[in-house]
């Protein structure tokens, strides 16, 4: 039986050879052991580099939206047909981008891949006591990791991204091709457990928690750059006129940045965890983002990226939306 990667390559080869796609966006082995690199395949001969495994954490939907040229006048280029190798969350992000009018549905081919969860480098680091991991090899439900002077076996569940543990969409709900039948999600965990635990505490306790988390932030904006939903031509944090808030790592400024980013992704976030994995200092970004997601889910019954018909939750309304909190 052909492996998942082989089926993936066959699929990509086919799409490129038949001219259905101009480019296939997928993952290739990276230079660091735990991180795959995004890979743009333009000819059938180049597909051999494509892989798919637990290291494919980047959300490739990020590459569907081209940088918006600002202040330049140019004739519209012929849009490329892009085939996206998509695990559940990549596919949902792509659908959300279609819903928001950022990309045209006919220009993207969603190649669904069943995802068994991706490794969070921070959790892996914790599992091996902060030692540098130089190699990793998955085998069943375990991961064999090696580094300078050590070899260890860790449970996969311990090192997968937290969002994967409560994943409900291992395969994109909307896809054009499915390379392999759906697997069972590594999920099962309650996705809002952490939010509810925090909510059960006092405001002071929550503030102390978020102060501690966001204090780590060095304002590198890796979270924004990894986020498939962050596509604004000019991000509010880059604006100078008006400059909405300071660019220092002052705790208030940092807090403001994270809170506003959560508001910007509210109802659109597909909880892929790309921001958490991209964060160099391990800020628990999802702790606040999940609160917004919970509110949107419970109040409006909306989930991002599962349907092409559903309007973005915060761009739509129902006349009978609950308003018990309004005086």
């Amino acid at each position, binding site marked *: 039986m052909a492996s998942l990667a082989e089926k993936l390559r066959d699929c990509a080869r086919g799409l490129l050879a038949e001219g259905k796609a101009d480019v296939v966006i997928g993952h290739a082995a990276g230079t660091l052991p735990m991180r795959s690199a995004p890979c743009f395949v333009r000819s059938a001969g180049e597909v051999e580099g494509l892989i798919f495994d637990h290291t494919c954490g980047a959300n490739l939907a990020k590459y569907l939206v081209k940088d918006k040229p600002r202040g330049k006048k140019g004739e519209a280029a012929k849009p490329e047909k892009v085939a996206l190798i998509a695990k559940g969350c990549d596919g949902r992000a792509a659908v959300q981008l279609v819903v928001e009018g950022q990309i045209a549905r006919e220009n993207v081919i969603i190649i669904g891949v069943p995802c068994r969860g991706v490794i969070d480098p921070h959790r892996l680091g914790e599992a091996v006591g902060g030692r540098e991991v130089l190699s990793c090899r998955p085998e069943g439900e375990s991961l064999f990791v090696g580094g300078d002077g050590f070899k260890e076996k860790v449970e996969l569940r311990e090192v997968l991204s937290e969002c994967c543990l409560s994943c409900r969409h291992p395969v994109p709900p909307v896809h054009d091709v499915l390379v392999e039948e759906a697997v069972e999600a590594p999920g099962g965990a309650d996705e809002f457990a952490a939010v509810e635990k925090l909510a059960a505490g006092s*405001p002071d306790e929550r503030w102390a*928690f978020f102060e501690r988390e966001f204090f780590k932030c060095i304002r590198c904006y890796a979270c924004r750059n990894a986020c498939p939903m962050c596509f604004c031509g000019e991000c509010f944090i880059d604006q100078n006129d008006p400059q909405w*808030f300071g660019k220092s790592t002052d705790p208030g400024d940092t807090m403001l940045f994270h809170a506003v980013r959560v*508001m910007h992704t509210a109802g659109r976030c597909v909880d892929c965890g790309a921001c958490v994995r991209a964060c160099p200092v391990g800020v628990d970004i999802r702790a606040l983002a999940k609160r917004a997601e919970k509110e949107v889910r419970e109040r409006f019954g909306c989930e991002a990226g599962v349907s092409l018909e559903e309007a973005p939750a915060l761009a739509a*309304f129902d*006349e009978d939306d609950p*308003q018990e909190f309004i*005086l």
Partner: protein
Amino acid sequence: MSDWQPRIIAFLCNWCSYAGADLAGVSRIQYPPTLRVVRLPCSGRVDPLLILRALREGYDGVLVSGCHPGDCHYLSGNYVARRKFAVIKAVVEHLGFEPGRVQFSWVSAGEGEKFANVVAKVTEDIRKLGPARRMAAAEQVK
């Protein structure tokens, strides 16, 4: 501390709540002098950034007020805003701001009395919470 008055920033819709505040004024209805009013074209104009920035500036509370549902000058501005308000309230409170720091109301141009009552209630709620302690840099709290 007993005579401490909170500083509350109010984002009011031009078409109703701002006119409601005006009516409260011309009707000489008494209400606490705690508001700093920012007039906006619609409650739909309230960017979450405005609310968070106000808290960052050290305001003790934020009041957002717009037209009653169905009465929006732009037909649906307040309906869309209502969804946004629900989420920002949840996020701000999850972050650790006390419930009551950020409040929302619908006040029409004819409801001068309601406007005064809303201001009195919001002022009292925030007075109980005390001065802003979150997010504002110490030197910015005046």
